[in-house]
Structure formats: structure tokens, C-alpha cells
């Protein structure tokens, strides 16, 4: 491998700054008392405290999963701060009142918070550490009956909806990290699109972890009623710390009859330095339930950050004729490890699913696709198409594919295609012979490789994703 191919990964993390805002933190460690304290600080109703305590008690009986193709030192769950909140001065009414320090942080991140950007039609719910700072465009959305607010607000203002749907897709005891999240989640986003409403704009939230040693346990719940549709964007960053930070979120989507939810993520958590020091452990449970007939849930993700990614956005296709899609680009560099993929669970008749996964490994990283396609005995006429492509940059990285197909209905059709390619000398020489620099060539090859996924991203994200991949690989190819 040429030296040029070895260099394309050394771009420093652009979002690695710490905002100097006083945080109000709960002491380290986890116990029923800490959970009660979190719940009390958030003035939660009794049923939610019960939900948390049940989850915690269940979590205590569970084992940390060890089946993923990743390795890391054992996490000390008593060494984590479970709740950190920027000390609020007073209730915020408009953007002008947001802490200027905080606003500068968001400006550095390029979060579209200011008015001008809002005019472009993105409503942003910003999560800073664990508390939602502000929700914009709420009034406009409220006109059509859409609720888009922080999870805490939803608990207070729409408890019946939260109670009805919380845990209905990812039960509190679903898995180790989901249980942990259910016990200690602090905030997140809530989105409800009523019957027949097409959300007039893309909804967007920006997550950021600020306090060193704090875990972020956010909870997102999106419900689209009959005939409703919504497109939801999630962006993630975190400042640079030497210690590892745990991020264990839960995202639940519910689509009723003829509803359509499109969920896009560009994840750029801090990945650690080139020696693997620091970085986010991103252990996330994302699942969508196509509950109604003809409903549709589509996940699109671009995963470029985190030291370790453990994430399988899934669809449970319960309603007849419902469909699930998963489009993913996962890029790993240096010593990053990613074990990501999806689950498509076909339960209803004529359910369809499509999986397009693109893994890019560079440096000494490890990148695994893990997927499960399950067709239940009732799912007559179910169809799945899966395509998993891996690309290797350099010769010290690793790509693996672990597909599982479990079919219990003879009428089901499944297709699985997989490929592994290497950015070869021949391709690079071809570009050079046409006068094109190595880095531009790599960026073109990578973007070409990811095209099938990028076309499913909203325009704004597609541009960001393209730039992000270029940045991430800068210097790794020579």
C-alpha cells in the first residue's frame, strides 16, 4: 500500500470543544435513589418512576451482551454520571434568551438554530447533554396538530400519549442497554403526527454530549397516526475527551395504517484519537413498528464517529402490506469498531423490506454488518432484498458480514447480495492517469460506493455526509 493510502485518516475532530457552562450533576453511579432523584428533578408522574424502577430492577438481572464483534474494557456502570443539566437561569421563550455560550457552541457545530436557518424549513429540537434547550417552530407545527417537543415536556403536556406508546416498541427489558436507558433516560424528543397530517417540514434534532464522564441516555418517540407522514433528522456530535463516554439511546417509532416515517441520522460522535484513546461508546436501540396496514418505516444512517458502534435500527412489520427500509453507510478509521446492521421482522402478509448496507473500513478499524431477516409463519408473500457491500482502504482494516435469514413461510422471497472490494491500485492509478489527485479520487470512489444510500438522505444531510466522509478519510489514503 502506498503511503498516500495510509495517510487519509488523520483529520483532527472538528467538534472537540467543551462548552464552559455550569452543569448541575447528580453524583456518579446508579441506584434506585439516583433514579428517584432524576425522576424527582424532572417532576415526573408516579407511573414513569415505576417504569424506570421496573427497568432498573430488570437491568440488574441482565448480562452485558458480548456477541458483537467489538472489544473494549469492561464498563464500570457505577462510574458514570447519569444526569447532567446545564443550570438554567429561567424558562426560555425565544432563541435570544438562550445562553450565548451555548449558542456559540451550536454555531461552531453549524446547528441551524438561528432564525435565518429556520426559514429554510427545519424545526430543531436541541438536546444539550440531557435537557432539551429549546424547541423551535413549535407553534407552526401545532397549527396542524403536530406535537414536536422535548420528551420531558411531552411527559407533562401529553402524558396519555407518552404512557400509551413509551416502551411499546422497545420494551423496558428488551436488552441490556435498552433497560439501562429505560431506567435513567433524561430527555429526548417526542413527535406526534396526528391522523392524515403530512408534516410540512423535516423535523430535526441535534444531540451533543458535553459533560466529561456523563452518559447520554436520550429517548425518542415518534408516532405517526393513520395516513400521517414525517421525515425526521438526527445529528450527533460530542466534544473530545480522553475518557470514553457511554451513549445508550432508545428510539421508538410507531406507524399506524398508511403512515410513513423516514428517520435519517448522521452520526459523528467523537471517535477517539488515532491511537484509540477516548471516544464514544454508542450502544443504541432503534426500532420501528409498522403497526398498521400499508405503513412504512425507513431508516437511513451515516455512521462515521464513535469509538464503538453497536446499533441495529430495525423494523417490525406487523401490519399487512407494510414495508421497512434500511440504508446505511458506516465508516470506520483508526481503531474504531462498528457492529451495525438491521433487523427486519416480517409478521404481516405481503410485507416488504429492503436493506442496503455500505461499510467502509480504513486504518486499523473493524467494521461489521450484522443483519437479521425474519419471516414469521403468518407472513405470506413477504419479500426481502438485502445488499451488503464492504470496501477496504489499506490492508490493516477488517470488514465482516453476519447475515441471518430465518424464514417460516414457504411463500416468502429473499435475496441477499454481498460484495467486498478494495480501493485498488488500479483504480487509483486510473484516476491519477486522468490527472486527478489521490484524495479527490478516493472521495469520488467512496461517494460513488455510497450513492445508493446518499440518495435517500435529505439534501442538507447528503451534502454534510459527503463532506464528512471526505474529512474522515483525509490523509488515510496516499
Amino acid at each position: 500500500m502506498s503511503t498516500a493510502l495510509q495517510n487519509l485518516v488523520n483529520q483532527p475532530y472538528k467538534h472537540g470543544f467543551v462548552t464552559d457552562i455550569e452543569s448541575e450533576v447528580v453524583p456518579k453511579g446508579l441506584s434506585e435513589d439516583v433514579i428517584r432523584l432524576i425522576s424527582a428533578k424532572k417532576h415526573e408522574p408516579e407511573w414513569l418512576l415505576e417504569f424506570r424502577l421496573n427497568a432498573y430492577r430488570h437491568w440488574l438481572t441482565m448480562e452485558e451482551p458480548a456477541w458483537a464483534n467489538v472489544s473494549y474494557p469492561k464498563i464500570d456502570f457505577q462510574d458514570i454520571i447519569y444526569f447532567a443539566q446545564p443550570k438554567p437561569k429561567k424558562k426560555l421563550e425565544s432563541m435570544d434568551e438562550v445562553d450565548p455560550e451555548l449558542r456559540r457552541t451550536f454555531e461552531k457545530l453549524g446547528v441551524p438554530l438561528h432564525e435565518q436557518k429556520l426559514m429554510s424549513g427545519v424545526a430543531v429540537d436541541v438536546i444539550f447533554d440531557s435537557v432539551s434547550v429549546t424547541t423551535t417552530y413549535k407553534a407552526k407545527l401545532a397549527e396542524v396538530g403536530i406535537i414536536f417537543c422535548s420528551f420531558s415536556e411531552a411527559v407533562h403536556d401529553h402524558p396519555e400519549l407518552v404512557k400509551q406508546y413509551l416502551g411499546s416498541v422497545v420494551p423496558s427489558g428488551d436488552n441490556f442497554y435498552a433497560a439501562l436507558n429505560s431506567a435513567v433516560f433524561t430527555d429526548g424528543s417526542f413527535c406526534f403526527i396526528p391522523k392524515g397530517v403530512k408534516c410540512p417540514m423535516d423535523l430535526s434534532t441535534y444531540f451533543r454530549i458535553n459533560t466529561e464522564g456523563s452518559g447520554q441516555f436520550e429517548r425518542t418517540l415518534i408516532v405517526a397516526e393513520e395516513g400521517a407522514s414525517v421525515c425526521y433528522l438526527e445529528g450527533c456530535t460530542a466534544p473530545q475527551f480522553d475518557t470514553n463516554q457511554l451513549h445508550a439511546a432508545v428510539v421508538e417509532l410507531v406507524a399506524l395504517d398508511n403512515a410513513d416515517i423516514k428517520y435519517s441520522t448522521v452520526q459523528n460522535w467523537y471517535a477517539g484519537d488515532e491511537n484509540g484513546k477516548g471516544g464514544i461508546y454508542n450502544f443504541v436501540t432503534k426500532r420501528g413498528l409498522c403497526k398498521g396496514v400499508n405503513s412504512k418505516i425507513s431508516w437511513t444512517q451515516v455512521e462515521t464517529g464513535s469509538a464503538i458502534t453497536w446499533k441495529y435500527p430495525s423494523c417490525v412489520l406487523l401490519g399487512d402490506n407494510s414495508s421497512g427500509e434500511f440504508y446505511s453507510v458506516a465508516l470506520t478509521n483508526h481503531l474504531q469498531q462498528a457492529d451495525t446492521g438491521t433487523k427486519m421482522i416480517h409478521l404481516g402478509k405481503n410485507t416488504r423490506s429492503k436493506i442496503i448496507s455500505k461499510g467502509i473500513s480504513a486504518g486499523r478499524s473493524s467494521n461489521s454488518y450484522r443483519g437479521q431477516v425474519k419471516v414469521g409463519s403468518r407472513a405470506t408473500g413477504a419479500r426481502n432484498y438485502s445488499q451488503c457491500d464492504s470496501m477496504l482502504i489499506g490492508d490493516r482494516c477488517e470488514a465482516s458480514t453476519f447475515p441471518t435469514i430465518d424464514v417460516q413461510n414457504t411463500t416468502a422471497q429473499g435475496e441477499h447480495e454481498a460484495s467486498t472490494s478494495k480501493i485498488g491500485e488500479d483504480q487509483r492509478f486510473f484516476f491519477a492517469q486522468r490527472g486527478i489527485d489521490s484524495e479527490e479520487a478516493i472521495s469520488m470512489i467512496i461517494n460513488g460506493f455510497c450513492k445508493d444510500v446518499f440518495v435517500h438522505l435529505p439534501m442538507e444531510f447528503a451534502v454534510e455526509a459527503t463532506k464528512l466522509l471526505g474529512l474522515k478519510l483525509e490523509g488515510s489514503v496516499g
Partner: protein
Amino acid sequence: MIKEGSKTLLEVKNLHAAVEGVEILKGVDLTVRAGEVHAIMGINGSGKSTFSKVLAGHPDYTVTGGTATFEGKDLFSLEPEERARAGLFLAFQYPVEIPGVSNSALLRLAYNTLQNERGLEELDPLEFEDLLEEKIKVVEMDPRFLSRSVNEGFSGGEKKRNEILQMAVLEPKLAILDETDSGLDIDALRIVASGVNQLLTPDNAVIMVTHYQRLLNYIVPDYVHVMSGGRIVKTGGKELALELEARGYDWLKAAA
């Protein structure tokens, strides 16, 4: 066409080159002037393709001796992309596929890189489309090929036509066609040859590397060189190609 006093584009002297430690080129001499068409012929393993790749700067090959200048500049001091931008073009024997990268995007990037090099304005996608519309006629290509991924799913002939399209867009001073005729049926051969002929001017030159005489019926060379054992063992006019067709290469091997 040979003209007195035309500019020397390429001058290769006593070139030696190796791949994985094995010496393949063992003293090649060649001079190419503007306006000339050269054919390099020879059996498999004689070093023809190695010669093309060494000139273009393929990383697998190491120059172990000799010199080469391109318009007076030391060719071997330039990176492959610098040689390309200086006007050296290689049409590949086995064009690579680049999934997801459209033909027109690649062509535009390559074209604009050259424009920058020459201190000229870049073309935006619309302007470039107009340019392509003209260029594509040279190789009688369906415009739909422009939006397809580079060479992906192309037939052998389509790939070779695509190489000539790239040549048409980049307008190199010296084009090396590495077995561009191999795997072509007679119609594709005619189209490719006609494309090359349209691109020939008194200011540029072509080196054709080929096994067969038939390409030379379409693109008539000024010089025919025979390569054997890593050296040019015989040089003649276009009639040499006919002689080779009739007699084979063995008599030259004996001579070498």
C-alpha cells in the same frame, strides 16, 4: 504525418524497468515528434504494455536505468497525475470499473483539473454537457453512457470507446493506446480507429501498442517498431506491419 522540424514530444533513451525485481525493459530507445503515429508491435511478454505503464508512471513498475523526457522535462521526476496534466494519456488495456461514479462526473472532474492546470476557467455542469455532446460524436456513443457509472456493465468494446471519449475530452499531446484493439469486433474497431483519427493533429502524437496488423489498416502509422525481449529490435514504415503479418515474429527473435 512526418514533418521536418516538428517538436519532439517524447524522447526515451536506454530505458530499463523492472516489476517485482524482474527486469522487463532492457534498453528501449524511442523518439516521438508532434504529428507522428507510432505502432509498437510484438508478442506477449515482449514488454510492450510494460513500456506504456512505465511511461504513465504505474506504481508497480520501477525504472532501473535510462531516461525519458516529455517536452524536454524529466518524465520520471513527475508523479503520474502530473504526467497526465502535462498531456500524457494512457488508454488502458483493461479499463477499470468505478461503481457509482458517473462517466460525466469523472470526465468533468478530469477536464476541470486540466483547465486549472492550464490557467483556464472551469466549466460548470451545463457548459460541460455542451462540450460532451460534441465529443461523444467522435466515438459514436449513446449519450446515455454519460450518466452510467464508469465502465460498469459496459461491454469490452464500450469500455474501449469510453477510453477514446476520455482522450477526446482531455486532448492529450501524446496518447498511448495500450492494446485498444484487443477484444473489439470489426464495427467497434472501426469506430475506435475513426475516433483516434479525428483527434490527430499536427501538434499531437499517438503510440499504438498492438499485436495485430488490422488496427493499422485504420490508423496508419508513420513508424512501426517491433519489441522483443524488452528492446525495440526493428523499426520500419507501415509496410513492416504487413511483413510481420505474413512472416510472424520468429525471424526477428532470431535477429535479436
